[in-house]
């Protein structure tokens, strides 16, 4: 942007853009980053000729004309989960975050005790879905999460971290298991890599992960918005430039491990 804001105005604008992303992120029919760019361009066009820096008061006048982002879509387009959560808000600002955390903790407890199967799997899942719907609803209302983040984020961070590690690194245990458990393969590795089998297995596993990232790269490039949606609201920042880094890291792992394996086999 060519315009400059006062600190207050900048903070206000950042909150508005956050509200915009939250309100539209669940809409597959709308390209959120596209709309965000349009809004930034709109603000720039509206305020470019005015004395700089732009005050919060002046910015607010423009944002008021744009209207609250959660009102930009017809009510029918707002996800049913968010509507239901909205209806439940009267129950108190802390009640739902407390329920979300309780379900998650109960899930962990039953999982550790291995009781009430499949409840240990369902409880964290329900907790995450509720947390997402609650956060969407909160953002649409323009509310601040405050200390409630300590109730809502733990389930999200834990489940997302598990999911992400499975998606990113599933070839690692698979290759290690396959090469370690298969005696004939292990014997071949001993011959190929002059006895340094464990190190070779590690390199092969890393190479497999790198190869997976090379496959994952083009897929994520095409469906990069799916990442933001899946890990919402923690990965709203994810874009195509991050996919390029994933692919680059994959290429690095493949070439690095291949080079080392080749050197070991000499």
């Amino acid at each position, binding site marked *: 942007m060519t315009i400059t804001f006062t600190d207050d105005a900048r903070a206000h604008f950042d909150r508005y853009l956050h509200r915009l992303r939250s309100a539209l992120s669940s809409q597959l029919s709308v390209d959120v980053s596209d709309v965000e760019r349009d809004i930034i361009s709109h603000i720039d066009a509206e305020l470019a000729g005015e004395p700089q820096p732009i005050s919060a008061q002046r910015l607010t006048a423009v944002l008021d004309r744009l209207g609250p982002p959660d009102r*930009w879509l017809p009510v029918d387009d707002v996800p049913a989960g968010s509507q239901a959560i909205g209806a439940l808000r009267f129950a108190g600002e802390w009640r739902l975050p407390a329920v979300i955390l309780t379900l998650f903790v109960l899930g962990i407890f039953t999982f550790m005790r291995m009781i009430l199967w499949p409840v240990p799997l369902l409880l964290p899942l329900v907790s995450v879905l509720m947390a997402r719907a609650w956060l969407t609803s909160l953002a649409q209302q323009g509310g601040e999460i405050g200390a409630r983040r300590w109730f809502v984020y733990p389930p999200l961070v834990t489940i997302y971290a598990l999911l992400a590690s499975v998606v990113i690194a599933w070839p690692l245990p698979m290759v290690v298991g396959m090469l370690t458990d298969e005696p004939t393969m292990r014997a071949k590795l001993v011959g190929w890599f002059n006895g340094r089998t464990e190190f070779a297995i590690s390199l092969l596993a890393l190479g497999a992960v790198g190869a997976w990232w090379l496959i994952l790269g083009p897929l994520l490039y095409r469906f990069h918005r799916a990442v933001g949606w899946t890990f919402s609201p923690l990965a709203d920042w994810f874009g195509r430039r991050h996919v390029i880094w994933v692919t680059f890291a994959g290429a690095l792992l493949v070439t690095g491990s291949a080079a080392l394996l080749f050197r070991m086999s000499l």
Partner: protein
Amino acid sequence: MLNVIGRGRIYGYDIVRQLRDVDALVVSEGTIYPILSRLKRDGLVRTSLEESPSGPARKYYEVTRRGEQLRDDMNTHWDLLTRGIAAIREKAK
């Protein structure tokens, strides 16, 4: 929206400015942009970015052939509807 874009290319912000001048149209200006995004997704408009000397690159909108077809159909429908309503009002006088 398709009528505002017309037959040429138009800067997104200018679409909002033109609609702002329509007295009877009471709508939050921000509503326009998600609609444009949907029109683009549905293949009714296409966009192109052009560098601007005074700010971020400007996004221009242009109606596709499919968009023109839909716009013409909807305009025909609108004309029929307004003529029908006018006829009813005339009778009521």
